[in-house]
């Protein structure tokens, strides 16, 4: 895919406890699959999906934790230059909800200030096993000024909406930033990957 095939490119990063369904959300969205009992996704760094929003092509680069959340050992560099974070918990697992403040601390520490964060309660197909009431999660999200959405990767409920809403929000912010043009703080993503640097040197 060449550079010109999209109008926007956003890096979206998933975090949250192990087993809450982060990878399922990504695979459902990018491939339309719900892999039952899928193992770790060996060798896959991030997944790509290009969507069209109001006639603009938006390329979403969706990064998964590579299992480093299992023992709370996510590298800081994972958070760098993310445009959006999807903080996921499992509505049938109180523990995954209780860990959210810890995750928010990590976000505050390592992610860029302007990152868009959305809280996602996954597994709403298992409604009779629900441990975290919707209202409680909504209150929590509001207190932390995050968006909130409940999803089911299995039933494909709200999965499309999750990523499209995020894309819309990111476009809105990007346009806003361009208007404001306030460059007081250097934005992450200012640097270049080596391959981009290489392009520069040819000129």
């Amino acid at each position, binding site marked *: 895919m060449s550079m010109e095939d999209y109008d926007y490119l956003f890096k979206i990063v998933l975090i949250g406890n192990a087993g809450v369904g982060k990878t399922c959300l990504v695979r459902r969205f990018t491939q339309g699959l719900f892999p039952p009992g899928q193992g770790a996704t060996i060798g896959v760094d991030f997944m790509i999906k290009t969507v069209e929003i109001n006639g603009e092509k938006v390329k979403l680069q969706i990064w998964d934790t590579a299992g480093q959340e299992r023992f709370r050992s996510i590298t800081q*560099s994972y958070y760098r230059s993310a445009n959006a974070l999807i903080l996921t918990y499992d509505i049938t697992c109180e523990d995954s909800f209780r860990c959210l403040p810890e995750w928010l601390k990590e976000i505050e520490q390592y992610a860029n200030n302007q990152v868009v964060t959305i809280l996602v309660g996954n597994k709403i197909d298992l409604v009779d096993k629900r441990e975290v009431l919707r209202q409680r999660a909504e209150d929590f999200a509001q207190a932390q000024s995050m968006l909130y959405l409940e999803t089911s990767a299995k039933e494909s409920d709200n999965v499309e909406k999750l990523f499209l809403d995020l894309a819309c929000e990111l476009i809105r912010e990007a346009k806003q930033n361009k208007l404001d043009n306030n460059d007081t703080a250097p934005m992450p993503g200012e640097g270049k*990957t080596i391959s981009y*640097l290489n*392009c520069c040197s040819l000129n």
Partner: protein
Amino acid sequence: MRSRDSVPAANMAAEELPSDFDIVILGTGLAESVVAAACSRVGQRVLHLDRRSHYAANWASFTFNGLLTWIEEQKEESKPEKIEDWSSLVEEGEELIHLSNSDPASITNLQVFSYTSEEEEADEPNTIEEEKAAGEDAVKESSETESAGSKEEEDAGPAEEEEPAETEEEEPEADQPPTSPPSNQSEPVRKKISHAQLVKEGRRFNIDLVSKLLFSRGSLVDLLIKSNVSRYAEFKNVTRILTYRHGNIEQVPCSRADVFASRQLSVVEKRKLMRFLTSCMEETEEQTAYSGRPYSEFLRDQQLGESLQHFLLHSIAMVTEDTPTEEGLASTRHFLRCLGRYGNTPFLFPVYGLGEIPQCFCRMSAVFGGIYCLRHSVHCLIVDKDTNRCKAVIDSRGQRISCSHVVLEDSYLDADRKRTATPPRYLSRAVLITDASVLPSDPDQQISMVTVPPTTTGGPSVKMVELSSSTMTCIPGTYLVHLTCQSVGSAHEDLLPVVTRIFRTTEPQEEDRRPSVLWCLYFNMADGSALEVEGHRVPSNVYVCSGPDGALGHEHTIRQAESIFQKILPEEEFCPPAPNPEDIIYDGDNASPGEDRAAVENGGNQEENQEKEGNQEENQEKEGNQEENQEENQEKEGNQENQEKKGDQEENGVNQEPEE
């Protein structure tokens, strides 16, 4: 202060580590992390642990607050280790090697000085707003730091007998009350930054424990490209090479464009320099005649003049007066080959600091199934007495984890098991937060490599890297300055003379335009190159990695990692390109990883192309060199144009939205 410290242990205990791996790796420094990535990449089951709560061991970078915590940790007395009885886990024919779980030896002589005012200055018109909120915390912090500072100041005082008398006056007085700022009429008023602000904005600092750069054709850049690990990091060009000469900071012209644009060189010097740089790329009989004799002698006999000799010896070859000619020429050639691949200098620096690099390799390992756990110790190795091979390790929870190979950071081994150079070698480090660049320029977002030749004969030559906030390692309005040299004495003794010459540690005097130091840290770190490659008293399948060495580049570490990988897996390729996610073809529901890899058009060809491009550049440059007599003005114009182009492109960085 680091968030991970506060993670309740209960969360962690939820899951046990698996108990069978191919390779267990202890420590997340650069070499260990590269080995982890390389092994996972070819399908080995890797367990990668670090007893610390942060990645990258002595290669780490910290936020300002994180660094203060780290400093406190270093000062703490290491508790005597409780030796637990694991005999129930040991089987017939096995014995234990106990590992060390603290690292008291690698960091020494830590000293902190704070020169910012403790109190908030309401009358200071340029004080940046928003200080109030962090005020309370900060005062506590700074009083701690300052008391530590002033105490050590006294201790360190007598060590500087050789210093000129003026240094005495410049000795920091940490508890000196802020005097009224002098009137600044012509100079732009520098923003005064308080300690509270450093603490409040602390998370925007990324302060490296080591100071290195990436040679753009060095082994680390090659590895990053080859393995595709480069996708996890972003880089900036080092924008200029500076040197300290005759009491001033001067810019070193090194690229062709620089040479022509240089204002300090005469036309004759420019021609001489260009001719020299062109001719030294090829081996000549004249050069061979100087074999074994000092490079400085060779340069002297080239009729180059004093300033060119200085540039070539100290800033381009970056060698000492005694370095033999062949070595000096090799360094010069390496520098020139690296020039122009990505920019006007041979160096790159990672955005967010060097501490990112080991983490990027860890990420690659995790993507290929490596299991990561920080804050997790291993207490012993279980060794089979007959074969002298390590069969398993015992972790701090008493879990026996079997493995075929163990790779460990040298600090996990007791001193009597390691073979190191005698006497031990150390690096002297200083980290400064300053309020201005050592050579102000427009634009002010420069990243500078500064070479400081020995100030006394036989003294160490100092490498200094000055980072602006564009590297995301410090806040706007400040610069982060890293000084490194081979230790002669303590870091403070070795580096204070340079710091007091180039920077100001007292209230500004009139006419003194040197940057002010706001905060600084001195420490010594064990020199990783002092660890011998062979001869450690360890089982045959246990491999030892060293910490950072004193060289500017990363060649030592990458060589070490590759050699360990080849010992473990002699048949396998070292870090073949990871598939590009965009090229992975999913074969229905259960795409197996193996097939994915096969299906991928990997980056191998890319790499070749890049190489070709690189060569073309080189050729272009050579051709260009021959046209050295071109008119200077033309050159200048061309140069400006190029820079503008580059600037435009920089804005189209990879993670930014393209222009509409």
